[in-house]
Protein backbone atom coordinates (compact mmCIF):
# COMPACT_ATOMS: atom_id res chain seq x y z
CA UNK A 1 0.00 0.00 0.00
CA UNK A 2 0.93 3.59 -0.65
CA UNK A 3 2.13 6.15 1.84
CA UNK A 4 -0.69 8.34 3.15
CA UNK A 5 0.16 11.16 0.77
CA UNK A 6 -2.41 10.68 -1.94
CA UNK A 7 -5.07 12.79 -3.58
CA UNK A 8 -7.69 10.31 -2.37
CA UNK A 9 -10.38 10.43 -1.27
CA UNK A 10 -11.59 12.51 -4.16
CA UNK A 11 -15.08 13.90 -3.88
CA UNK A 12 -17.45 15.51 -6.30
CA UNK A 13 -19.79 17.95 -4.61
CA UNK A 14 -22.87 18.76 -6.63
CA UNK A 15 -20.94 18.52 -9.88
CA UNK A 16 -22.71 19.80 -12.97
CA UNK A 17 -21.73 20.35 -16.56
CA UNK A 18 -23.88 22.21 -19.06
CA UNK A 19 -23.26 23.14 -22.65
CA UNK A 20 -25.46 25.52 -24.62
CA UNK A 21 -28.01 25.51 -21.84
CA UNK A 22 -28.30 21.73 -21.85
CA UNK A 23 -27.38 19.84 -18.70
CA UNK A 24 -25.03 17.02 -19.59
CA UNK A 25 -24.30 16.20 -15.99
CA UNK A 26 -26.36 17.43 -13.11
CA UNK A 27 -25.95 17.44 -9.36
CA UNK A 28 -23.43 14.60 -9.04
CA UNK A 29 -22.20 13.74 -5.57
CA UNK A 30 -19.70 10.93 -5.31
CA UNK A 31 -16.62 9.87 -3.42
CA UNK A 32 -13.66 7.98 -4.86
CA UNK A 33 -12.04 6.09 -2.00
CA UNK A 34 -8.78 4.17 -2.14
CA UNK A 35 -9.25 0.45 -2.73
CA UNK A 36 -10.79 -1.76 -5.38
CA UNK A 37 -11.75 -0.22 -8.74
CA UNK A 38 -14.74 2.07 -9.08
CA UNK A 39 -16.75 1.18 -12.17
CA UNK A 40 -18.86 3.83 -13.85
CA UNK A 41 -21.61 2.29 -15.89
CA UNK A 42 -24.67 3.48 -17.72
CA UNK A 43 -26.16 3.64 -21.19
CA UNK A 44 -24.59 5.46 -24.16
CA UNK A 45 -24.65 9.20 -23.69
CA UNK A 46 -25.30 8.95 -19.95
CA UNK A 47 -22.32 11.24 -19.31
CA UNK A 48 -19.65 8.73 -18.28
CA UNK A 49 -16.87 10.18 -20.41
CA UNK A 50 -17.81 13.71 -19.38
CA UNK A 51 -17.71 12.68 -15.73
CA UNK A 52 -14.22 11.20 -16.13
CA UNK A 53 -13.02 14.36 -17.88
CA UNK A 54 -14.42 16.50 -15.08
CA UNK A 55 -12.82 14.36 -12.39
CA UNK A 56 -9.51 14.43 -14.27
CA UNK A 57 -9.71 18.21 -14.59
CA UNK A 58 -9.93 18.40 -18.38
CA UNK A 59 -13.32 20.04 -18.28
CA UNK A 60 -14.32 22.78 -15.88
CA UNK A 61 -17.57 22.03 -14.08
CA UNK A 62 -20.30 24.58 -14.57
CA UNK A 63 -21.65 23.78 -11.10
CA UNK A 64 -20.26 22.24 -7.94
CA UNK A 65 -16.65 21.33 -7.39
CA UNK A 66 -14.11 18.57 -7.05
CA UNK A 67 -12.11 18.20 -3.85
CA UNK A 68 -8.90 16.20 -3.57
CA UNK A 69 -7.27 15.18 -0.34
CA UNK A 70 -4.50 17.69 0.30
CA UNK A 71 -1.41 16.40 -1.48
CA UNK A 72 1.11 18.36 -3.53
CA UNK A 73 0.60 18.59 -7.29
CA UNK A 74 -2.76 16.83 -7.62
CA UNK A 75 -2.72 17.16 -11.42
CA UNK A 76 0.41 15.07 -11.68
CA UNK A 77 -0.93 12.27 -9.54
CA UNK A 78 -3.56 11.16 -11.99
CA UNK A 79 -3.62 9.84 -15.50
CA UNK A 80 -6.30 9.00 -18.01
CA UNK A 81 -6.75 6.66 -20.93
CA UNK A 82 -9.28 8.06 -23.37
CA UNK A 83 -12.05 6.21 -25.08
CA UNK A 84 -10.21 7.09 -28.30
CA UNK A 85 -6.55 7.32 -27.32
CA UNK A 86 -4.33 9.74 -29.23
CA UNK A 87 -0.89 8.34 -29.89
CA UNK A 88 2.02 10.63 -30.69
CA UNK A 89 3.79 10.40 -34.04
CA UNK A 90 6.67 8.56 -32.43
CA UNK A 91 7.76 5.05 -31.77
CA UNK A 92 5.93 2.86 -29.26
CA UNK A 93 8.76 3.44 -26.79
CA UNK A 94 8.72 7.17 -27.56
CA UNK A 95 5.06 7.28 -26.59
CA UNK A 96 5.81 5.64 -23.27
CA UNK A 97 8.77 7.96 -22.60
CA UNK A 98 6.98 11.22 -23.37
CA UNK A 99 4.69 11.50 -20.33
CA UNK A 100 7.55 10.42 -18.07
CA UNK A 101 9.66 13.29 -19.40
CA UNK A 102 6.79 15.72 -18.82
CA UNK A 103 6.31 14.40 -15.30
CA UNK A 104 9.92 15.20 -14.53
CA UNK A 105 11.12 11.62 -14.11
CA UNK A 106 14.95 11.70 -14.17
CA UNK A 107 16.38 10.87 -17.59
CA UNK A 108 18.21 7.78 -16.34
CA UNK A 109 15.04 6.16 -15.00
CA UNK A 110 12.74 6.80 -17.93
CA UNK A 111 13.87 4.07 -20.26
CA UNK A 112 13.56 1.30 -17.67
CA UNK A 113 10.16 2.52 -16.53
CA UNK A 114 8.84 2.89 -20.06
CA UNK A 115 10.05 -0.56 -21.05
CA UNK A 116 8.59 -2.12 -17.92
CA UNK A 117 5.24 -0.52 -18.77
CA UNK A 118 5.40 -1.88 -22.33
CA UNK A 119 6.20 -5.33 -20.97
CA UNK A 120 3.15 -5.05 -18.72
CA UNK A 121 0.87 -4.87 -21.77
CA UNK A 122 2.92 -7.24 -23.93
CA UNK A 123 4.23 -4.61 -26.33
CA UNK A 124 7.94 -4.76 -25.50
CA UNK A 125 8.73 -6.50 -28.80
CA UNK A 126 7.13 -3.62 -30.71
CA UNK A 127 9.05 -0.86 -28.89
CA UNK A 128 10.69 0.48 -32.04
CA UNK A 129 7.60 0.48 -34.24
CA UNK A 130 5.75 3.67 -35.18
CA UNK A 131 2.93 3.83 -32.66
CA UNK A 132 0.26 4.95 -35.08
CA UNK A 133 0.74 1.87 -37.24
CA UNK A 134 -0.29 -0.43 -34.40
CA UNK A 135 -3.63 -2.18 -34.53
CA UNK A 136 -6.53 -0.60 -32.67
CA UNK A 137 -6.21 -2.99 -29.75
CA UNK A 138 -2.44 -2.56 -29.56
CA UNK A 139 -2.91 1.21 -29.55
CA UNK A 140 -5.32 0.91 -26.66
CA UNK A 141 -2.85 -1.24 -24.72
CA UNK A 142 -0.06 1.26 -25.42
CA UNK A 143 -2.26 4.07 -24.12
CA UNK A 144 -2.83 2.06 -20.96
CA UNK A 145 0.89 1.33 -20.61
CA UNK A 146 2.03 4.93 -20.90
CA UNK A 147 -0.57 6.06 -18.37
CA UNK A 148 0.32 3.28 -15.95
CA UNK A 149 4.03 4.12 -16.30
CA UNK A 150 3.27 7.41 -14.56
CA UNK A 151 2.40 5.46 -11.43
CA UNK A 152 -0.55 7.71 -10.62
CA UNK A 153 -2.68 7.75 -7.48
CA UNK A 154 -5.77 7.60 -9.68
CA UNK A 155 -5.99 6.14 -13.14
CA UNK A 156 -9.10 6.99 -15.17
CA UNK A 157 -9.86 4.45 -17.87
CA UNK A 158 -12.58 5.22 -20.39
CA UNK A 159 -13.66 1.89 -21.87
CA UNK A 160 -10.14 0.47 -22.00
CA UNK A 161 -11.32 -2.79 -23.53
CA UNK A 162 -13.68 -1.40 -26.15
CA UNK A 163 -11.78 -2.79 -29.12
CA UNK A 164 -9.85 -5.64 -27.56
CA UNK A 165 -10.13 -9.32 -28.34
CA UNK A 166 -11.12 -11.68 -25.49
CA UNK A 167 -7.53 -12.59 -24.61
CA UNK A 168 -6.42 -8.95 -24.59
CA UNK A 169 -9.49 -8.04 -22.54
CA UNK A 170 -8.52 -10.69 -20.00
CA UNK A 171 -4.95 -9.35 -20.03
CA UNK A 172 -6.14 -5.79 -19.41
CA UNK A 173 -8.33 -6.99 -16.57
CA UNK A 174 -5.30 -8.66 -15.03
CA UNK A 175 -3.30 -5.45 -15.42
CA UNK A 176 -6.09 -3.47 -13.81
CA UNK A 177 -6.19 -5.92 -10.92
CA UNK A 178 -2.41 -5.76 -10.55
CA UNK A 179 -2.40 -1.96 -10.60
CA UNK A 180 -5.18 -1.89 -8.03
CA UNK A 181 -3.21 -4.31 -5.84
CA UNK A 182 -0.18 -2.06 -5.99
CA UNK A 183 -2.28 0.82 -4.69
CA UNK A 184 -3.39 2.64 -7.85
CA UNK A 185 -7.02 3.60 -7.68
CA UNK A 186 -8.78 2.64 -10.90
CA UNK A 187 -11.84 4.57 -12.01
CA UNK A 188 -13.16 3.07 -15.20
CA UNK A 189 -16.15 2.87 -17.49
CA UNK A 190 -17.23 -0.24 -19.32
CA UNK A 191 -20.18 -1.61 -21.22
CA UNK A 192 -19.22 -5.15 -20.33
CA UNK A 193 -21.28 -6.06 -17.28
CA UNK A 194 -19.33 -9.28 -16.76
CA UNK A 195 -16.17 -7.23 -16.61
CA UNK A 196 -17.79 -4.81 -14.18
CA UNK A 197 -18.72 -7.75 -11.96
CA UNK A 198 -15.19 -9.15 -12.06
CA UNK A 199 -13.41 -5.88 -11.30
CA UNK A 200 -15.68 -3.58 -9.35
CA UNK A 201 -15.29 -2.67 -5.72
CA UNK A 202 -18.10 -0.20 -6.09
CA UNK A 203 -20.32 0.91 -8.92
CA UNK A 204 -21.43 4.36 -10.00
CA UNK A 205 -24.56 4.17 -12.13
CA UNK A 206 -25.27 7.12 -14.41
CA UNK A 207 -28.41 7.70 -16.38
CA UNK A 208 -29.20 10.80 -18.45
CA UNK A 209 -26.60 12.89 -16.73
CA UNK A 210 -27.67 11.97 -13.21
CA UNK A 211 -25.98 9.75 -10.70
CA UNK A 212 -28.61 7.26 -9.66
CA UNK A 213 -26.46 5.00 -7.48
CA UNK A 214 -23.05 4.65 -5.95
CA UNK A 215 -23.11 1.30 -4.22
CA UNK A 216 -20.75 -1.55 -3.36
CA UNK A 217 -20.57 -4.01 -6.23
CA UNK A 218 -22.18 -6.95 -4.37
CA UNK A 219 -25.20 -4.84 -3.59
CA UNK A 220 -25.46 -3.24 -7.03
CA UNK A 221 -25.44 -6.49 -8.95
CA UNK A 222 -27.77 -8.36 -6.62
CA UNK A 223 -30.26 -5.77 -5.49
CA UNK A 224 -29.91 -2.43 -7.29
CA UNK A 225 -31.70 0.39 -5.54
CA UNK A 226 -33.29 2.04 -8.54
CA UNK A 227 -35.62 0.55 -11.16
CA UNK A 228 -33.44 2.11 -13.89
CA UNK A 229 -30.38 0.19 -12.69
CA UNK A 230 -32.40 -3.03 -12.46
CA UNK A 231 -33.64 -2.52 -16.01
CA UNK A 232 -30.12 -1.68 -17.21
CA UNK A 233 -28.73 -4.87 -15.69
CA UNK A 234 -31.36 -6.87 -17.53
CA UNK A 235 -30.56 -5.15 -20.79
CA UNK A 236 -33.90 -3.42 -20.91
CA UNK A 237 -33.00 0.19 -20.28
CA UNK A 238 -32.73 2.26 -23.40
CA UNK A 239 -30.80 5.53 -23.07
Amino acid at each position, binding site marked *: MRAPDTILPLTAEGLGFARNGVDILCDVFLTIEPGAPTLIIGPNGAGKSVLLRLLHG*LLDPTAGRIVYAPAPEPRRRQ*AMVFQRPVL*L*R*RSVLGNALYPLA*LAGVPRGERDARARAALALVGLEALAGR*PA*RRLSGGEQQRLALARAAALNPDVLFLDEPCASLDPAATRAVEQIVTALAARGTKIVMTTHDLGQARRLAGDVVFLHRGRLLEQTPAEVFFTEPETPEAAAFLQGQLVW
Partner: protein
Amino acid sequence: MNDLGSALTTAASMVTTADPAVVQVVLLSLRVSLTAVAIAALVGLPLGALLAVAQFPGRRVMIVALNALMGLPPVVCGLLVYLLLSRSGPLGPLGLLFTPTAMVIAQAVLIAPILAALARQLLEGMWEEYSEQLRSFGAGPWRAVPTLLWDGRYALLTVLLAGFGRASAEVGAVMIVGGNIDGFTRVMTTAIALETSKGDLPLALALGMVLMAIVLTVNAAAQVLRDSSARWAG
Protein backbone atom coordinates in the same frame (compact mmCIF):
# COMPACT_ATOMS: atom_id res chain seq x y z
CA MET B 1 16.42 28.22 -83.65
CA ASN B 2 20.07 27.54 -84.51
CA ASP B 3 21.09 30.09 -81.90
CA LEU B 4 19.10 28.20 -79.32
CA GLY B 5 20.63 24.90 -80.39
CA SER B 6 24.22 26.06 -80.14
CA ALA B 7 23.51 27.93 -76.92
CA LEU B 8 22.07 24.70 -75.46
CA THR B 9 25.16 22.69 -76.44
CA THR B 10 27.53 25.26 -74.99
CA ALA B 11 25.41 25.44 -71.85
CA ALA B 12 25.41 21.67 -71.46
CA SER B 13 29.18 21.50 -71.76
CA MET B 14 29.54 24.32 -69.21
CA VAL B 15 27.46 22.31 -66.76
CA THR B 16 29.17 18.98 -67.39
CA THR B 17 32.69 20.44 -67.23
CA ALA B 18 31.78 22.40 -64.09
CA ASP B 19 32.74 25.76 -65.57
CA PRO B 20 34.23 27.81 -62.68
CA ALA B 21 32.03 30.83 -63.43
CA VAL B 22 28.94 28.64 -63.22
CA VAL B 23 30.10 26.78 -60.14
CA GLN B 24 30.85 29.96 -58.23
CA VAL B 25 27.44 31.43 -58.93
CA VAL B 26 25.66 28.19 -58.07
CA LEU B 27 27.53 27.78 -54.80
CA LEU B 28 26.78 31.32 -53.70
CA SER B 29 23.11 30.83 -54.55
CA LEU B 30 22.93 27.70 -52.46
CA ARG B 31 24.82 29.28 -49.56
CA VAL B 32 22.59 32.34 -49.49
CA SER B 33 19.29 30.49 -49.84
CA LEU B 34 20.14 27.68 -47.41
CA THR B 35 21.32 30.16 -44.76
CA ALA B 36 18.19 32.23 -45.30
CA VAL B 37 15.99 29.13 -44.88
CA ALA B 38 17.82 28.15 -41.70
CA ILE B 39 17.39 31.60 -40.16
CA ALA B 40 13.79 31.92 -41.31
CA ALA B 41 13.06 28.46 -39.86
CA LEU B 42 14.46 29.37 -36.46
CA VAL B 43 11.97 32.22 -36.26
CA GLY B 44 9.13 31.06 -38.47
CA LEU B 45 8.52 27.50 -37.30
CA PRO B 46 8.24 28.22 -33.55
CA LEU B 47 6.12 31.26 -34.37
CA GLY B 48 3.82 29.12 -36.52
CA ALA B 49 3.58 26.49 -33.79
CA LEU B 50 2.81 29.10 -31.17
CA LEU B 51 0.06 30.58 -33.35
CA ALA B 52 -1.35 27.09 -33.77
CA VAL B 53 -1.66 26.40 -30.03
CA ALA B 54 -1.86 29.63 -28.08
CA GLN B 55 -4.90 31.77 -27.54
CA PHE B 56 -3.93 35.39 -27.09
CA PRO B 57 -5.32 38.75 -28.13
CA GLY B 58 -4.16 39.66 -31.59
CA ARG B 59 -3.71 36.09 -32.72
CA ARG B 60 -6.20 36.32 -35.55
CA VAL B 61 -4.71 39.59 -36.73
CA MET B 62 -1.26 38.00 -36.77
CA ILE B 63 -2.52 35.05 -38.78
CA VAL B 64 -4.15 37.33 -41.35
CA ALA B 65 -0.98 39.41 -41.54
CA LEU B 66 1.18 36.34 -42.04
CA ASN B 67 -1.05 35.03 -44.78
CA ALA B 68 -0.87 38.40 -46.50
CA LEU B 69 2.92 38.49 -46.14
CA MET B 70 3.11 35.12 -47.89
CA GLY B 71 2.35 37.02 -51.07
CA LEU B 72 4.88 39.80 -50.41
CA PRO B 73 6.52 40.60 -53.78
CA PRO B 74 10.29 39.99 -53.57
CA VAL B 75 11.12 43.44 -54.98
CA VAL B 76 9.11 45.08 -52.21
CA CYS B 77 10.87 42.95 -49.64
CA GLY B 78 14.20 43.88 -51.24
CA LEU B 79 13.28 47.55 -51.14
CA LEU B 80 12.40 47.40 -47.43
CA VAL B 81 15.65 45.64 -46.55
CA TYR B 82 17.51 48.11 -48.78
CA LEU B 83 16.04 51.01 -46.81
CA LEU B 84 17.06 49.34 -43.57
CA LEU B 85 20.61 48.65 -44.68
CA SER B 86 21.34 51.70 -46.82
CA ARG B 87 23.91 54.16 -45.55
CA SER B 88 21.27 56.45 -44.04
CA GLY B 89 19.06 53.60 -42.81
CA PRO B 90 18.89 52.38 -39.20
CA LEU B 91 21.28 49.50 -39.89
CA GLY B 92 23.43 51.49 -42.31
CA PRO B 93 26.50 51.66 -40.04
CA LEU B 94 26.86 47.87 -40.27
CA GLY B 95 27.88 48.29 -43.91
CA LEU B 96 25.96 45.22 -45.05
CA LEU B 97 24.38 46.56 -48.22
CA PHE B 98 25.61 44.81 -51.38
CA THR B 99 27.04 41.85 -49.46
CA PRO B 100 25.87 38.22 -49.38
CA THR B 101 24.73 38.86 -45.81
CA ALA B 102 22.26 41.45 -47.05
CA MET B 103 20.93 38.90 -49.52
CA VAL B 104 20.51 36.35 -46.74
CA ILE B 105 18.60 38.90 -44.68
CA ALA B 106 16.31 39.80 -47.56
CA GLN B 107 15.50 36.19 -48.38
CA ALA B 108 14.99 35.31 -44.73
CA VAL B 109 12.55 38.21 -44.35
CA LEU B 110 10.81 37.06 -47.50
CA ILE B 111 10.27 33.45 -46.47
CA ALA B 112 9.94 33.58 -42.66
CA PRO B 113 6.24 34.52 -42.96
CA ILE B 114 5.76 31.69 -45.45
CA LEU B 115 7.29 29.16 -43.11
CA ALA B 116 5.27 30.50 -40.17
CA ALA B 117 1.98 30.49 -42.05
CA LEU B 118 2.46 27.01 -43.51
CA ALA B 119 3.65 25.63 -40.16
CA ARG B 120 0.62 27.09 -38.42
CA GLN B 121 -1.80 25.47 -40.87
CA LEU B 122 -0.08 22.15 -40.51
CA LEU B 123 0.31 22.16 -36.73
CA GLU B 124 -3.15 23.52 -35.98
CA GLY B 125 -4.68 20.26 -37.14
CA MET B 126 -2.22 18.29 -35.12
CA TRP B 127 -2.89 20.38 -32.04
CA GLU B 128 -6.61 19.81 -32.36
CA GLU B 129 -5.90 16.11 -32.19
CA TYR B 130 -3.25 16.28 -29.45
CA SER B 131 -4.44 19.00 -27.11
CA GLU B 132 -6.61 17.00 -24.75
CA GLN B 133 -4.10 14.16 -24.50
CA LEU B 134 -1.25 16.57 -23.84
CA ARG B 135 -3.26 18.43 -21.22
CA SER B 136 -3.89 15.11 -19.54
CA PHE B 137 -0.11 14.63 -19.42
CA GLY B 138 0.18 18.08 -17.87
CA ALA B 139 1.50 19.91 -20.92
CA GLY B 140 0.09 23.35 -21.67
CA PRO B 141 0.42 25.24 -24.95
CA TRP B 142 4.00 26.36 -24.27
CA ARG B 143 5.22 22.84 -23.70
CA ALA B 144 3.24 21.70 -26.71
CA VAL B 145 5.26 23.87 -29.11
CA PRO B 146 8.42 21.70 -29.11
CA THR B 147 6.26 18.55 -29.07
CA LEU B 148 4.35 19.62 -32.18
CA LEU B 149 7.52 20.73 -33.96
CA TRP B 150 9.11 17.36 -33.27
CA ASP B 151 6.08 15.23 -34.09
CA GLY B 152 5.48 17.26 -37.22
CA ARG B 153 9.09 17.15 -38.32
CA TYR B 154 8.61 15.19 -41.54
CA ALA B 155 5.71 17.30 -42.66
CA LEU B 156 7.60 20.45 -41.65
CA LEU B 157 10.51 19.44 -43.86
CA THR B 158 8.24 19.91 -46.83
CA VAL B 159 7.47 23.38 -45.49
CA LEU B 160 11.21 24.10 -45.38
CA LEU B 161 11.59 22.85 -48.92
CA ALA B 162 8.80 25.14 -50.06
CA GLY B 163 10.66 28.01 -48.41
CA PHE B 164 13.90 27.01 -50.07
CA GLY B 165 12.20 26.79 -53.44
CA ARG B 166 10.79 30.28 -53.04
CA ALA B 167 14.15 31.70 -51.84
CA SER B 168 16.29 30.20 -54.57
CA ALA B 169 13.87 31.19 -57.32
CA GLU B 170 13.33 34.83 -56.40
CA VAL B 171 15.33 37.50 -58.19
CA GLY B 172 13.98 40.88 -57.12
CA ALA B 173 15.13 40.97 -53.50
CA VAL B 174 18.70 39.75 -54.01
CA MET B 175 19.09 42.00 -57.04
CA ILE B 176 18.21 45.11 -55.01
CA VAL B 177 20.18 44.41 -51.83
CA GLY B 178 23.02 42.38 -53.42
CA GLY B 179 23.63 44.49 -56.47
CA ASN B 180 24.55 41.49 -58.68
CA ILE B 181 28.30 42.18 -58.29
CA ASP B 182 30.35 39.75 -60.37
CA GLY B 183 32.18 37.24 -58.21
CA PHE B 184 30.72 38.61 -54.99
CA THR B 185 26.93 38.86 -54.90
CA ARG B 186 25.95 37.30 -58.22
CA VAL B 187 23.57 34.39 -57.81
CA MET B 188 21.82 32.20 -60.34
CA THR B 189 18.68 34.24 -60.80
CA THR B 190 20.40 37.61 -61.06
CA ALA B 191 23.04 36.15 -63.37
CA ILE B 192 20.39 34.70 -65.66
CA ALA B 193 18.62 38.05 -65.83
CA LEU B 194 21.84 39.89 -66.57
CA GLU B 195 23.33 37.43 -69.09
CA THR B 196 20.06 37.22 -70.95
CA SER B 197 19.89 40.98 -71.32
CA LYS B 198 23.55 41.02 -72.38
CA GLY B 199 22.89 38.30 -74.92
CA ASP B 200 25.18 35.66 -73.36
CA LEU B 201 22.61 32.95 -73.79
CA PRO B 202 24.86 29.90 -73.12
CA LEU B 203 25.76 31.08 -69.61
CA ALA B 204 22.16 32.09 -68.90
CA LEU B 205 20.94 28.72 -70.13
CA ALA B 206 23.56 26.79 -68.19
CA LEU B 207 22.49 28.53 -65.00
CA GLY B 208 18.88 28.04 -65.90
CA MET B 209 19.47 24.31 -66.29
CA VAL B 210 21.14 24.10 -62.89
CA LEU B 211 18.34 26.09 -61.30
CA MET B 212 15.76 23.82 -62.88
CA ALA B 213 17.64 20.75 -61.69
CA ILE B 214 17.76 22.11 -58.14
CA VAL B 215 14.06 22.99 -58.17
CA LEU B 216 13.17 19.54 -59.51
CA THR B 217 15.34 17.81 -56.92
CA VAL B 218 13.77 19.86 -54.16
CA ASN B 219 10.29 18.96 -55.34
CA ALA B 220 11.13 15.29 -55.65
CA ALA B 221 12.59 15.36 -52.16
CA ALA B 222 9.44 17.06 -50.89
CA GLN B 223 7.32 14.33 -52.45
CA VAL B 224 9.39 11.54 -50.92
CA LEU B 225 9.26 13.18 -47.52
CA ARG B 226 5.54 13.71 -47.70
CA ASP B 227 5.06 10.04 -48.46
CA SER B 228 7.31 8.84 -45.67
CA SER B 229 5.69 11.21 -43.20
CA ALA B 230 2.28 9.95 -44.21
CA ARG B 231 3.52 6.43 -43.63
CA TRP B 232 4.69 7.42 -40.16
CA ALA B 233 1.73 9.53 -39.21
CA GLY B 234 -0.65 6.71 -40.08
